[in-house]
């Protein structure tokens, strides 16, 4: 059984059909790219998968159970985490607390324990701290643990967002243009990190990206969107040489 199964997914905003008849099937452990020209509906597809928008038709199932109609926080609990195209960090919180906030559902204790700071609170907090540092180390962010998120350089902010998403212990990680605004060196480093976290955390990754070097370098399978509908899918070498795809990107 596929990890994520999307069937006939569609959404309309008034008369605009932003995503139409999208079908996807992601196997567990795969690294899949979602590409397409600007305005093709890629981010909208992410918003549908994470419950920001409710689809007007179609189904989304994660490990066999439907997630349509769930709130974003419920979907996160179910196992889908994401990053955002325009970075959305908790700016006025420390790097450590950014990740800690994402551990919200992993380490639970009651409001009473929060207010009284009893022994069980201290134990859980200590476990959280250890987990946070473990995740931050993967991204070489551990030295910045006490820095405000807003003070990090751009590339590190992107990394922190991925770290935060991983902290929710997802089965599926959605990355929305992770290499946007990065120089070639940073992009190369990012590709390594993505490979690394995929193995280390044993997760499935779906990413939106315009950097074709990155896409062809790490993705095993691609879906191409154009005008909200699926244009092609297949392995990178087939899809990227498909005349339809080239026309969609470059025009006639």
């Amino acid at each position, binding site marked *: 059984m596929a990890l994520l199964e999307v069937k006939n997914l569609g959404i309309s905003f008034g008369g605009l059909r932003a995503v139409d008849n999208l079908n996807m099937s992601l196997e567990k452990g795969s690294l899949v790219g979602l590409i397409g020209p600007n305005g093709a509906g890629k981010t909208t597809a992410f918003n549908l998968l*994470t419950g*920001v928008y409710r689809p007007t038709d179609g189904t989304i199932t994660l490990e066999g159970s439907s997630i349509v109609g769930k*709130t*974003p*926080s419920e979907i*996160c*609990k179910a196992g889908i*985490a*994401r990053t*955002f195209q325009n970075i*959305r*960090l*908790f*700016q*006025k*919180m420390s790097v450590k*607390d950014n990740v*800690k*906030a*994402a*551990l*919200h*559902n992993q*380490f*639970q*204790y009651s*409001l009473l*324990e*929060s*207010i*009284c*700071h009893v022994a069980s*609170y201290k134990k*859980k*907090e200590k476990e*959280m701290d250890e987990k946070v540092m473990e995740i931050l180390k993967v991204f070489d962010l551990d*030295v*910045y643990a006490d*820095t*405000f998120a807003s*003070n990090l350089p751009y590339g590190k902010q992107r990394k922190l967002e991925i770290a*935060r*998403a991983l*902290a*929710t212990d997802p089965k599926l990680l959605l990355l929305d243009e992770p290499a946007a605004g990065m120089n070639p060196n940073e992009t190369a480093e990012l590709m390594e990190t993505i490979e690394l976290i995929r193995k280390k955390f044993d997760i499935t990754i779906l990413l939106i990206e315009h950097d074709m070097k990155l896409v062809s370098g790490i993705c095993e399978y691609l879906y191409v969107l154009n005008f909200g509908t699926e244009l092609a899918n297949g392995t990178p070498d087939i899809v990227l040489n498909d005349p339809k795809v080239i026309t969609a990107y470059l025009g006639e």
Partner: protein
Amino acid sequence: MENKKKLLINVVIAIVVYAAVMILLNSGLLNRQMRSLITPICTNVMLAVSLCLIVGFLGELTLGHAGFMSLGAYTGALLSLNLPFPPYVSLFIAIIAGGCVAAVAGAIIGIPVLRLRGDYLAIVTLGFGEIIRSVINALDITGGARGLSGIERLTNYNHFTLVFVLTLIVIVVVSNLINSRHGRAICAIRDNYIAAEACGIPVSRFKIMAFIISAFLAGIAGVVYAHNIGILKPANFDYNTSIEILVMVVLGGMGSIKGSIIAAVILTALPELLRGAADYRMLIYSIVLIAMMLFRNSNFNAALIEKKNLKAMQKLQKEGK
């Protein structure tokens, strides 16, 4: 380790403050006017700290905090006037009940929070505050505009220990909460509610939670207020009162519990101690509000922060290597 040190310092500060006030009270160094300021200072600290939870940490503006306070004050006063128990037992029940009634109102006001943010929410809370006041004004049981009098003064300076303990409880509750998974969720919502939701934090639940806790604590402050002043009038809980509390939070740096406490102490004590300044009090408040906001968002302030960050960054990079 560092946390323990901080905790120790705070405990020492609390003991010193308590001891200092007790010595001043018992040695008779304080005149009547200064003694009568002690409980209002504590009440305002409670109000400012509880409002700080919403304005500073949840990042929403409410203009109806005096409404929560009035619910606590009237509930507490009516209970201690009518309950047949010994005064302190009644007061205890009044404090709990006052907090609870305010918390229920907090939950009701929390509902619009789910749909509204920013400006609209501020206006709705203002509306709620005014509705509460109008209703209190129109009811018989609250004495209407004439007020509710004859409340036993169980929280005036003669009962400083009790008032001090209550104030400490309010401060500890809020500061502990902020350093917990619940508090982090609340701050995450302030910084970016969309990302918070995407990280598995149920935004609606935590917004309502913040409102309920804040209202509960404001309700307790209201009970203390009622049993210090002895007579309640709806006019004591108008829009201006809400703004006064807001000024304390803003002056305290919005999001700093210590700042809110210090601002509450200063803004309560100063106008009373400086004769003549009382006339200019609201004028000064308004200028403080505008100046604080202009400064916080000025280029000058941004440059200061940047400079500080740069230094910290350089230090980190050195350590990294």
